[in-house]
């Protein structure tokens, strides 16, 4: 389709203006507010015990969620692509549920399930604290990040087909050896993408986590919760900007990692 110069320029201006107003301005504003008083103030603000604890908790949740998502994500993708079992269509639909369901709904349902009066409330009475503890936050984060590994690995599995696995079998490899030596290396790029997306989403998770966290500063606050409580509860606007900048820094790092990997992938 050919468009006139005028139309093309108008379209470009609208698109750029949209991105500028909605992405560039807020981010620039946060950065400006954060570093407006110099780097020292920022460092002080993110080195408080509460901030360090929040960073550690966020990273801990990522460290727990990523391996679990890798194992179950690959298994689910294999089942969806290679398996033929009753309920496969249902599983296919359920995997996408976290995209559709608001994280806060997940938080509420977790409380109903694991809270003191929930179905598995007995655990709480035994002293195993799921809700208002780390397990609850991990569960909420797993729920919202579940589709990433599955949906990144699935198309790669389709693409490679079963030839290589069958060849490995005729050469004497057991199914376990085939999985480790053939299937996993073949899907490694899809898996890497899935992991990067999982990390980014885990760091940013808020709605589900706030429902199931006890929210004590220095104990059970993730970075997103820290931003929230500094702004709303403590009226510490500057602290909120600083914590948000830290969070953004981690996300940018993850995206950079993805870009670097993408470059590497296209050269091998």
């Amino acid at each position: 389709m050919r468009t006139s110069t005028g139309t093309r320029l108008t379209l470009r201006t609208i698109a750029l203006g949209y991105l500028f107003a909605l992405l560039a301005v807020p981010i620039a504003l946060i950065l400006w507010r954060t570093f407006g008083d110099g780097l020292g103030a920022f460092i002080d603000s993110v080195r408080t015990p509460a901030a360090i604890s929040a960073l550690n908790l966020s990273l801990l949740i990522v460290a727990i969620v990523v391996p679990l998502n890798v194992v179950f994500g690959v298994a689910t993708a294999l089942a969806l692509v290679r398996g033929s079992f009753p309920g496969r269509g249902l599983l296919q639909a359920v995997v996408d549920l976290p995209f559709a369901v608001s994280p806060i709904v997940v938080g509420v349902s977790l409380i109903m399930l694991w809270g003191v009066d929930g179905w598995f409330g007995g655990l709480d009475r035994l002293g195993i604290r799921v809700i208002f503890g780390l397990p609850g936050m991990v569960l909420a984060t797993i729920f919202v990040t579940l589709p990433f590994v599955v949906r990144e690995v699935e198309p790669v599995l389709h693409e490679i087909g079963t030839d290589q696995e069958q060849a490995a079998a005729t050469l004497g490899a057991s199914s376990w050896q085939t999985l480790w030596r053939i299937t996993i290396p073949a899907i490694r790029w899809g898996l890497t993408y899935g992991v990067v997306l999982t990390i980014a989403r885990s760091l940013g998770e808020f709605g589900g986590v706030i429902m199931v966290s006890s929210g004590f500063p220095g104990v059970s606050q993730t970075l997103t919760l820290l931003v929230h409580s500094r702004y709303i509860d403590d009226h510490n606007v500057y602290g909120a900007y600083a914590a948000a900048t830290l969070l953004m820094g981690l996300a940018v790092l993850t995206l950079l990692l993805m870009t670097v990997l993408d470059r590497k992938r296209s050269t091998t």
Partner: protein
Amino acid sequence: MITVTGASKSYGDFAALDDVSLEIPAGTLTALLGPSGSGKSTLLRSIAGLERLDAGTVVIGGRDLTAVAPQKRGIGFVFQHYAAFKHMTVRDNVAFGLSIRKRPKAEIARKVDDLLEIVGLDGFQHRYPAQLSGGQRQRMALARALAVDPEVLLLDEPFGALDAKVRADLRQWLRRLHDEVHVTTVLVTHDQEEALDVADRIAVLNKGRIEQVGDPVSLYDSPANDFVMSFLGSVATLNGVLVRPHDIELEREASVELVPQGHATPARVRARVERIVRLGFEVRVDLATDPGERFAVQMTRSQAADLDLRVGETVFARASRGQDPQLVGASAAI
């Protein structure tokens, strides 16, 4: 020796194999030849254990392997689309079976180098499959299959994805390799020329059944039925009988001929020359009869020169070698 007895396999309503029995003598190179959907690949994959038979048995070298997993069958398998391990170098691809068997490193290295030399990939050890041509990839796949010293080598349309020139070269090469290595080999193909060229024995399959088994010459010269006849080489229909195009003689005049008693008069058909095509060393003459039946005749250049045919001329065609209905019926009983 591979013995398949009473093999049946269905996919839903479709019978891929229908009570097939076949013996493949040790040390031979046997081709399973048939059109797509004839069950030839299913038969091969069943021998490999990659398909589970609904009924029937597979015995290799005296061992009943029907219920044995492909890992433990002692087979080598080569796939149409190479099934190269893309993330491994050529060396690691070929070494795969040996490293699974936990052979000593030195032994693996020696064996891999030997095999790569045999398949002509010496010096390609550190390349990745993506850096090889199709023909090279398939030779790598062959080396990989041979590395584990398989009792039988199974090839599923191994040259199907390659272009014509490479195909022809590779099948000559495969034949020479077989003459050196002597491993019992089964090759699936839909290409009759490939089967005739490379195989000691050919089993022709159609609709999940074996139509005929034999050496290439006897299959070509005395096909059991019209299907085998038309699948193994081109045919022309002369007076309702299938004849090879090079077994038709053309004459200017309806010559008088003495017919020995008890023999049918050779059928003569009046036909008009429609086109004369020179295909390198041979000449193809396209003809049409009055009722509009078309057929082609193959002859050598010198025969064509002797006849000196012109387009539009009327000639008489007759089968030069007996391929009348009685004879076809008789050979089917063999």
